[in-house]
């Protein structure tokens, strides 16, 4: 489809949605012109004027121009799952879609019950004592932890003193970023050759200034820190709270318990690990769980069960305050519950096995392609559910790097790979993750495409550099993205800057 921008479509007076006029008894009762003159809109917003069918067709065309889950995506750190339409359709029913969070709890027993049941499932998987689902994603759950730490230390009267958060240089960016946004000073521990920071570095970093530590394990390189229990011991000895960012839970589901390892709190990504859709970036849920010691500081409400009745507990005087309005992205919680029930304990454990087997199969096949290098090549042990790889050797040989690959992969109907949050650690990085969703045929296809592009990089590098060639649009010229005189985040701005519409000045700088 050669699809115009919607702002160019339509005709004067075209309508896609009509609303009735107020009933005559309403008009005769309240009259017109109900908005005070000074606040009444006098211009006509420049929106498209199209039919319902044109809106439908336009957006269906755009959906067809979106790979979505139609290709093969071994996208590291995102843990592609099958998103069951069974649970999708259940949550679209009026019984959930047309429900208001302020309804009386007697009218919400269905959804409160599901949340409570799922809380129990996560408690078992983590060893924690209470979960909440208010956070809108993994980063928000990390933020929840920082807010909780503030409330905890404030309650202890030490918030002025406990001002630091310690993490690894390889932890997910959301950990240092949320801690900083929460007002903590971030201490990053550098990685050693074995792929994780040394215990000595940790010991040097923690002190009575440390409010908390935030860690993933295994990390995005697929490397597991075998000293993690000792880390937690050391941090707790210094009085710090310990938070386990379980973003990479998939490879260890049913095998590790955050609480047994000593952590005070942890978070799970329901939109990755637990089969709710990622949907191009949310709505998502970061399920946050903690020990009974920390539970008084949780954002409210917390779903609790009393007898056969479920209710929302808002009575937490020490609460850290809300990180987001309401109780969370409830439909995603229901989908995660459905995933956990559909898998069962056995299925969840099997999924973890499969994702690690699949990853190692993928590693094995990638290792056979000349020009690719695994990160921390000295680490000989098998990696967990994802592995960081490098195109460094190939880039030196051909000039084709990981961005070029990403551009070219889409031409094969394959989702471009994930590179890395820390491109400075490994040259030309990419981070594939096999997970338990894909078939052997899918993984083989994906690797075959990588091998093919490696070959193309040697035989026809220009073609790879100018990719994509097989997509709705050609390669984007990225210089506008950093140029204030050219970037245009709306059609208004585009008209003003690029199309030179002199009328389009309102609302500009």
């Amino acid at each position, binding site marked *: 489809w050669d699809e115009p921008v919607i702002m160019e479509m339509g005709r004067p007076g075209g309508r896609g949605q009509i609303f009735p006029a107020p009933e005559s008894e309403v008009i005769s009762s309240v009259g017109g012109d109900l908005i005070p003159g000074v606040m009444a809109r006098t211009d006509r917003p420049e929106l498209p004027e199209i039919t319902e069918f044109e809106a439908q067709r336009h957006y269906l065309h755009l959906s067809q121009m979106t790979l979505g889950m139609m290709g093969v995506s071994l996208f590291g750190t995102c843990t592609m799952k099958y998103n069951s339409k069974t649970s999708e359709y259940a949550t679209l029913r009026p019984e959930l879609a047309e429900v208001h969070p302020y309804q009386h709890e007697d009218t919400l027993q269905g959804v409160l019950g599901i949340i409570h049941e799922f809380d129990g499932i996560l408690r078992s998987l983590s060893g924690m004592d209470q979960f909440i689902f208010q956070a809108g994603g993994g980063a928000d759950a990390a933020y929840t932890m920082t807010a909780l730490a503030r409330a905890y230390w404030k309650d202890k009267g030490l918030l002025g003193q406990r001002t630091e958060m310690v993490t690894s240089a390889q932890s997910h960016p959301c950990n240092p970023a949320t801690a900083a946004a929460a007002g903590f000073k971030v201490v*990053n521990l550098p990685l050693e050759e074995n792929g994780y920071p040394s215990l000595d570095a940790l010991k040097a970093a923690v002190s009575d200034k440390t409010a908390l530590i935030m860690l993933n394990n295994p990390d995005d390189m697929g490397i597991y820190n075998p000293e993690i229990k000792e880390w937690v011991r050391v941090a707790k000895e210094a009085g710090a709270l310990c938070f386990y960012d379980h973003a990479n839970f998939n490879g260890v589901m049913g095998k590790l318990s955050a609480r047994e390892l000593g952590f005070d709190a942890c978070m799970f990504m329901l939109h990755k690990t637990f089969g709710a859709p990622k949907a191009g970036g949310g709505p998502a849920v970061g399920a946050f769980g903690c020990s009974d010691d920390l539970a008084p500081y949780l954002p409210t409400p917390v779903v609790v069960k009393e007898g056969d009745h479920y209710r929302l507990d808002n009575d937490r005087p020490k609460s850290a305050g809300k990180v987001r*309005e309401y109780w969370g992205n409830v439909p995603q919680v229901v989908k995660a519950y459905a995933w956990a029930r559909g898998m069962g304990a056995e299925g969840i454990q099997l999924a973890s096995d499969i994702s690690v*087997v699949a990853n190692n199969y993928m590693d094995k096949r990638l290792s056979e392609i000349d020009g690719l290098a695994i990160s921390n090549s000295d680490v000989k*042990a098998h990696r967990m559910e994802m592995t960081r790889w490098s195109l460094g050797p190939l880039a030196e040989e051909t000039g084709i790097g990981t961005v070029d690959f990403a551009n070219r992969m889409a031409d094969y109907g394959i989702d471009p790979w994930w590179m890395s949050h820390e491109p400075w650690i490994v040259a030309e990085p990419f981070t594939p993750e096999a997970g338990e969703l894909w078939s052997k045929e899918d993984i083989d296809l994906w690797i075959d495409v990588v091998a093919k592009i490696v070959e193309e990089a040697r035989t026809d590098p220009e073609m790879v550099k100018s990719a994509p060639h097989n997509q709705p649009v050609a390669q984007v*010229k990225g210089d506008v993205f950093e140029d204030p005189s050219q970037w245009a985040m709306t059609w208004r701005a585009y008209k003003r800057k690029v199309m030179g519409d002199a009328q389009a000045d309102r609302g500009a700088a």
Partner: protein
Amino acid sequence: MSTEPRPTQSRSHPWMALSAPGVIDEMLAEIGAPSVEALFEQIPQDHYRKTPLDLPPALSSEMELKRDLVTRLKRNETCEDNLNFLGAGVWQHHVPAIVDEVVGRTEFATNVWGSYQSDHGRNQTWFEFSSQLGALLNLDVVQLPVYSWGCASGHAIRMAAKITERKKVLVPQLSDPERLSVIRTYCQPQEMESAIEVVMVAADPTSGRLDLNDLKSKLGSDVAAVYFENPAYLGTIETGAAEIAKLARAAGAETIVGVDPISLGVMAAPGDYGADIVTGPVQPLGVHMQCGGGAGGFIASRDDETYVRSYNGFLVSIAPTLEEGQHAFGLACPHQNSYGMREYGNDWTGNSTYLWAIAGAVYMSLLGPDGFAEVGRLIVSQARYAAKLLGEVPGVRIVWPDTQFKEFVVNFDDAGKTVAEINDALRAKGIFGGKDISGEGLGVGQAALYCVTEVHTAADIQRLADTMKEVLS
């Protein structure tokens, strides 16, 4: 080919292709590993959990799973079967079927994040969300939505603090406690070195609007921003908006306005009365209430580099491609967020509510300028009518009867019953009464915040008034 179905215990799982018999063994052989266990060699033995998993039994068939979900969800009562007047940040608006269709397409409601190279259609839809919302706001920059209106306002206040290098924000006394709690979280406790102080501005008791004198008295050179909403939490229309913005600008502070986008067909665009940064909810733009799971918040501003460089999230810009005359879409200023700069980025970002940007794009394209005008006019008319009819019920007083958009405060001090009692009685008759705000410290007595939208017919409103009369008699 065997003649018998395989026994149940070894059957593979429909969600995992590699669970089919023999596949794992085959892959282990190719890896050269003796067992699955061997692949977990990195984990020390004493790290393995000792407590066995204690999960409810698997509902392995789709049929059982569906039955479980549907049976449980049917224990809810809905705003479809009951007549609902709850709003306060989550509102019952009409969601066009086409929005549901597009949002539900597996290409959009996908398991993947979706890279820019492969998801041109998604990118364009995002741009169209920002473009249309910009047209409603009369502003040139709109970021992809964050978690909620409260989060958007929190980020906006932090943007203002960064831009002005000041650490105080003025907010209305009559704020939504839910949103305010989030804003406080974003502003940090005062113990933190980088905390932003949240200072309340009093309300004019006769109108619910901001008390401009109190505002002036607090607007010093330490104020990073004035934040207010229009329509405000209690439904009032802030007619002093332009004046507030002028005062703020004079003090060197940013003006941050929270607006309900569904009002913008009939209410002035905030870009036209001096707002520097605008936030608001995306849920009214075609997202179902979903028990609060429909929340999302936008941030918009003028197209000034200072603002653009201080956004925390994803800005989608139109851009040329290698092919002459063609355009595509990508992220502007991609390196300034926390993905690129960790703790040195602007605030922080993560998975958000981008699917609602798609809903919003479709919704706005369906309504167009006339649809927004119609729906705005309908909402304000029905809400005024409801206020009028309820105000005629003995014992009921409408606090600010003529200044609201879709919500309004109903006071029951003279009714001899608490709002909780009244709502229980209404609920028994299939009506969800307004949100009980008696305990929110707003100084409005036994009061409820009623929300009326385009979904309420005159007959619905008459039913409410009649039932209220019954309940209070």
